[in-house]
């Protein structure tokens, strides 16, 4: 068994996110709201349409509006071309994104209507669901949807026994030493509430708490970037 500390290949500190982190608003002119979020080599774009009438009619909810997310990885986003179209993985991530954003959107005033969020991953290098959620939160704000708060998402990984922030592709899927790698994507509101946490793998209670603390701190940094992008986009809006 190895007890050696995991050393990051790209020379980042354990609590350092990838760079650059870029956020842009209003990148899709035809959408009611849109945003792009880049972290390292991962790029996600999100487009929001609506509120519009829900079709088919039997899915309408007369009490409140519905949030509908679609996550899609483009065929050229990874090194080996992936088969385009919905897959088991993408349907799951769509649902996860919906759950991460649902607690913050206020759709009481839009009965029988739907807000569509389309997330496309144009470049994937691990952490795509987090990038997608970050982009979607900005796009929702840009579309003028009433929201209680913003959501910022980041992942923490356990490499063998060391906790590191924001895994890249190597750390996420190629690292196999010792206990291997465990990825824990999380989403936080600005007020610090967790709207989403995924974990499949083994981790101790103590370490999980530590991981949450680490992610919370990083999510504040991401929030500042989202905020800056939204505020600075005003003069450019067409």
């Amino acid at each position: 068994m190895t007890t050696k500390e995991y050393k990051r290949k790209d020379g980042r500190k354990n609590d350092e996110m990838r760079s650059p982190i870029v956020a842009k608003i209003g990148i899709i002119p035809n959408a009611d709201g849109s945003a792009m979020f880049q972290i390292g080599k991962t790029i996600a774009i999100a487009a929001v349409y609506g509120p519009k009438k829900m079709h088919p009619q039997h899915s309408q909810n007369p009490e409140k509006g519905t949030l509908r997310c679609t996550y899609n990885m483009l065929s050229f986003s990874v090194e080996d071309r992936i088969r385009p179209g919905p897959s088991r993985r993408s349907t799951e991530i769509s649902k996860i994104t919906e759950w991460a954003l649902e607690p913050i959107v206020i759709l009481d005033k839009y009965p029988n209507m739907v807000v569509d969020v389309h997330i496309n991953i144009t470049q994937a290098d691990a952490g795509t669901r987090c990038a997608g959620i970050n982009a979607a939160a900005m796009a929702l704000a840009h579309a003028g949807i009433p929201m209680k708060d913003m959501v910022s998402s980041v992942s923490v990984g356990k490499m063998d026994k060391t906790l590191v922030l924001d895994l890249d592709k190597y750390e996420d899927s190629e690292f196999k030493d010792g206990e291997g790698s465990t990825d824990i994507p999380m989403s936080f509101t600005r007020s610090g509430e967790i709207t989403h946490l995924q974990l499949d793998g083994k981790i101790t209670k103590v370490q999980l708490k530590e991981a949450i603390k680490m992610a919370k701190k990083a999510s504040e940094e991401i929030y500042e970037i989202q905020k800056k992008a939204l505020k600075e986009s005003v003069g450019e809006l067409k």
Partner: protein
Amino acid sequence: MSERKVVIPGEVIEKGNDFLPGEGTEKRGEEIVALRYGLAEESNRLVKVIPLSGVYNPRRGNVVIGKVELITFNGWVIDIGTAENAFLSLTEVPRFVNKDGLDEVMDIGDMAVIKIAGINKRGVDATIKSRGLGRIDEGLIVSVNPNKVPRIIGKEGSMINLIKDETRCNITVGQNGLVWIKGDKIEDELYAKKAILFVTEKSFTSGLTEEVKKWFEGGKK
């Protein structure tokens, strides 16, 4: 707070009990928090957020321009670019209409200027019982971003009156972002269209009316 500032959802606009939460805001404890993305503004202690983007949502009293989608036995269904179509009832037409002559007033595909009379659970109700409302027979319709409509109208209509005077056109601005231009000559109408698109492009410059005045002076040469 005297300056207007850009806020994002969840951001605290004002602290303390001196202010009242208006549209797009909420009171959480002692703080007034923005619920949507836009410009925060305070007047008479009321804090509200003016939207900068997003879809048009209809309000009572708004004049909008729409397209007739369907004729029913007692009225017209009009698409005004919102999730819910507007319904114009036969009783809201100021003159007598024969039961099987509804298409003579407005046929499917016709454009019309309507006023929103009310919004209820079933949808949006419209009326044409006012001056300047009704079917559009001729002219030009330009589509702009609904959030730019206040800039096209200007303070107390200063901008729209300037464009009307300069181009000698009659212009009706629908709150849903459709603008109807009617002039004597097509050249005048196209000139007015150009002016309106200029306003939407420059909508973030301050002293825009002056800027447009200059633009008209340059355009004449």
